[in-house]
């Protein structure tokens, strides 16, 4: 589904990622581990197409299609989703209106207000989000935890093929991590895939991890299965070198 080959990329001419290779297949859950500043968020922003980041060499393909020249909204319409580490506040646009616009954009179909609202309320209830939040402005005045749950709400409403979660579990209390984790588990099935950045293995509890990658200073220095996640959560990154 996602195929990254020899990716060298960075920001303002400075290379941050030095030759990343990564393949994610349908039905898989991948975890990216690594200390702060190792390039994890940069990788996700590049896959989503943030204009600030530039590719120096290498390719990112999604379902066989080269992404390099596609705008972020075109990538979203192909089925790529990013749950942001710090979601933006959009004053004046309600959660419901933005999400309906997004669902219409992604599906290319006009969506009626009432059925949409019903579905939205049902998903909000599963995520234990106050139903009034639908009429609040996007992320404006939301607590850290509310913003993260709002990202998962968008994930479930947009139902993409590839869900990238950038520290969606950080800054959450135990109950909130559980809600987010259940939300991701609900989303995941054999036809889609997850790519997860986490410092906290809690979010992985409701999921089966297929592969873990350790990213250090812009390079993948170790790959493995669940055992790698356990290793890192117990001993940190000191044993990895590059």
């Amino acid at each position, binding site marked *: 589904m996602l195929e990254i080959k020899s990716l060298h990329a960075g920001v303002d001419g400075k290379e941050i990622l030095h030759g990343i290779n990564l393949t994610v297949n349908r039905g898989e859950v991948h975890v990216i581990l690594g200390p702060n500043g190792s390039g994890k968020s940069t990788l996700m922003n590049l896959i989503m197409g943030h204009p600030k980041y530039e590719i120096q060499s290498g390719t990112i393909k999604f379902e066989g299609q080269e992404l390099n020249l596609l705008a972020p909204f075109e990538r979203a319409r192909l089925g790529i989703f990013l749950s942001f580490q710090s979601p933006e*506040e959009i004053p004046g*646009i309600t959660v419901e209106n933005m999400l309906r616009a997004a669902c219409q954009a*992604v599906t290319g179909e006009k969506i009626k207000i009432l059925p949409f609202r019903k579905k939205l309320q049902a998903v909000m209830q599963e995520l234990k989000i106050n139903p009034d939040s639908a009429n609040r402005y996007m992320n404006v005045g939301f607590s850290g935890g509310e913003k993260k749950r709002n990202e998962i709400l968008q994930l479930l409403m947009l139902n993409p093929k590839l869900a990238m979660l950038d520290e969606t579990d950080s800054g959450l209390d135990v109950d909130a991590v559980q809600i987010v984790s259940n939300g991701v588990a609900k989303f995941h099935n054999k036809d889609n895939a997850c790519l997860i950045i986490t410092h906290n293995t809690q979010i992985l509890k409701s999921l089966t991890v297929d592969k873990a990658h350790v990213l250090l200073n812009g390079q993948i220095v170790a790959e493995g299965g669940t055992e790698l996640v356990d290793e890192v959560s117990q001993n940190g990154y000191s044993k990895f070198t590059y």
Partner: protein
Amino acid sequence: MSKKTYIEDIERTLYDIKNVDKSVYKSQAGLTEEVVRDISKRKNDPDWMLDFRLKSLEVYESINIPNWGPDISRLNMDEIVTYVRPDAKMVGSWDEVPQDIRDTFDRLGIPAAEKQSLAGVGAQYDSEVVYHSVQKRLTEQGVIYTDMETAIKEHEDIVREHFMKLVPPKDHKFAALHGAVWSGGSFVYVPAGVNVKIPLQSYFRLNAAGAGQFEHTLIILEEGSSAHFIEGCSAPKYNVTNLHAGCVELFVGEGARLRYSTIENWSRNMMNLNTKRALVEKNGLIEWVSGSFGSAVSMLYPCSILHGEGARCEFTGVTFASKGQNLDTGASVIHVAPHTSANINTRTISKSGGAATYRSAVKVTKNAHHAKCSVNCESLMLDSESRSDTLPVMDIEVGDVDIGHEAKIGRISEDAIFYLMSRGIDEAEARAMIVRGFVEPIAKELPLEYAVEMNNLINIELEGAN
């Protein structure tokens, strides 16, 4: 690599349709005593009004144009035709309005709005009002809503007592100009205790090239009454400069409430130098809702004089300056009495090299203890060639007051655009959503059909090529 949004100059077809100039009379260009006397004669002014015009002309000649604000040097008064009489008499039925003029107002949606949501309508075409109507139910309650010319004939004493008393000709050069050549406009009188629940609307359309429009709006609300007045204005675009120097005077009596809403969408060759002022008595309320979208240059700062104890002002404004526009707008409040309060809330947007300035003056005089004033102005620049300035002035002469000011100037956040795009929304729509969101606190203050018009204007302004 993201595609760049290319934003074109706007398409304003609806507003830009010109009618053939069928005016029956035009004064000669420029401003002379002869022109002023001629206008007065043609309008059958009473003697006091002719005197008033001539005195205003003297004042006009004695003062300079403002030495601050946007450059208005391209305005050459010798080229402006101050009076254009359309080939139409004022009537009370749209069927009697000449077809081309009727079509213009049809396109602007005035007769349709009248049927659905208005209690009275005035329509001015160039220098004269061509249509005026008011619901009989209101007339029976003593409400007067008519054109200024009729008001001078039928309610001469009231007009004489109030006309240009709030905005005296010596106030500034364009107030003096207005005093000399004013024509048209609306007069509203609401007797004590009468509530006009459905809005009244006057629409000012300037069709003639190189002309000026100088309508005068005088609204008097007696004690405990209420009304909502809506003012609309537009003009087709010409290559020569047009001038709008209207004057609005609002007298809000004790405990009365007036809402004055404007969506101004002049064409890009218009110099809009308009003066609006309200005098608010004890426990009265003036609510301004002001949308400035058009014109080449605007200088507009509606002023509220909080004259009686507990008088209040709510000002809500949005200004959108695009290519070639310099819109200098804001508000002014003078607290004269104790326990008066004012709330100023504005949003300005600039794009494609447009310049938008927020300018305000708040004065709290010695007597106005326990005055409250809160100013919140936010500006959004959509690109790096556009300008935005915030110039709030406060002059507080008494200690026991509660004054707050919050100003924000920002650029449209690329991260916010990326966030929306990552959800599948294309770049042009993402920008439009952010702008609509930015003005949402203002849009929700507008009557529905005006909120829709404002949203349409924003979409037209933002329309991209992709």
